């Protein structure tokens, strides 16, 4: 018990929260980037431009099937070998964005594809252009289907930022390791704190999405 009281000193808690803040920042930046890039790539794959869509699809499949940790190693240790030297924060954001964009693209594509093709046909035969039909009929329905998988993808992203501890990004996991590295009595309290802090952030995000879901009446 004394270990816990000692481990949760204000200094340590503040240090953990600083790490959590980096985790949240890196996640937020990566979520925004991968949502934009992934959305564009997903649309590009869906609309079927000759060769281009197939190529984009192939690259997306390759990236989705690689471990994020490998991509992270590549951006931090591999890129300097070919003359690009990103720092830990840049390498982490780059790796997360590349990986998550591919994941998001796939979610967007399958969300659009899940809309009944009859909807598009009906919209077109009512005189709408392809773009109008897409914008007013297909996408609003597709977005409802995309929200749950997108949110769980972003929850994964937050959890996966912990991997960046290996490139010494000062996020939550890294800060916890520094604290318990100084005193073995702090190991158990730190793991408990890690579990609780990650859980709160991730659970809050899925909770938010459930509220959003209900509001949209999906």
């Amino acid at each position, binding site marked *: 018990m004394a270990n816990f009281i000692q481990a949760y000193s204000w200094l340590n808690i503040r240090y953990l929260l600083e790490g959590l803040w980096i985790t949240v920042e890196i996640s937020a930046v990566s979520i925004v980037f991968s949502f934009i890039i992934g959305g564009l790539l997903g649309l590009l794959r869906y609309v079927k431009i000759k060769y281009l869509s197939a190529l984009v699809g192939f690259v997306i*499949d390759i990236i989705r099937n690689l*471990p994020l940790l490998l991509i992270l190693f*590549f951006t931090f240790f591999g890129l300097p070998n070919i003359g690009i030297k990103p720092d830990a924060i840049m390498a982490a954001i780059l790796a997360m964005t590349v990986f998550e964009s591919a994941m998001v693209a796939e979610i967007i594509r399958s969300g659009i594809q899940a809309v009944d093709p009859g909807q598009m046909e009906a919209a077109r035969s009512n005189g709408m252009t392809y773009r109008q039909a897409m914008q007013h009929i297909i996408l609003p329905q597709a977005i409802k289907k995309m929200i749950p998988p997108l949110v769980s993808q972003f929850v994964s992203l937050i959890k996966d930022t912990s991997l960046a501890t290996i490139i010494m990004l000062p996020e939550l996991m890294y800060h916890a390791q520094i604290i318990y590295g100084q005193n073995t009595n702090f190991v158990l309290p730190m793991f408990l704190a890690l579990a609780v802090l990650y859980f709160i952030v991730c659970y809050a995000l*899925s909770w938010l999405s459930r509220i959003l879901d209900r509001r949209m009446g999906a």
Partner: protein
Amino acid sequence: MISILVNHWPEFWSGFLFTLGSSILALIGSLIVGTIFALLEISEHKWERIVGRVYVEIFRNIPLLVITMFFYVVIPMFITNVNGFTAGTIGLTIYTSAFIAETVRAGIEAVDPGQMEAARSNGLTYLQAMTHIVFPQAIKITIPPLGNQFINLVKNSSVLAFVAGFDLMYQGNLIASTTFDTSNTYLAVGLLYLILTLPLSYFMRYLEKKWA
């Protein structure tokens, strides 16, 4: 890239086998644990439902790395020594079982409840109805998402590199640090991961289309 792959083939190959072995062990383990918690989640008793729900929510919302490091760092301090491969595989099993529980639960819930009622009113016990009537129908719905979970498992097994689990990622790091040719080494590692994951991913997409 090819020359690194050829020169260090024994290390790459042993890493490949460790990755495959850890993934398969964790898949078997998490199928068993995941199915048990899926059954708890849909149980008729309130307390069993709560236990299932809490397990799934906890382990879905904590990073795999934290769970794995817990078994690698904390368990040896209090209980018994665990090597990296075991700690990593246990971590993978627990983490994945939460996702598999969700998949199996969704599969079972997708089966028409009338099937269970009909089986029960024909005199089958709950367990008999589950194993002979509901499960066989649920499996078809669960196989494509389970395949995707296995792909995730293979990718996630790279976390073994954190705990000296001798997997592909770990060997890749060793080779990268001895040859200094980091970019080509990681490309070679990526190629080996793709050999495991890409065909499976295309096969699952084919199944989804075929069974849809």
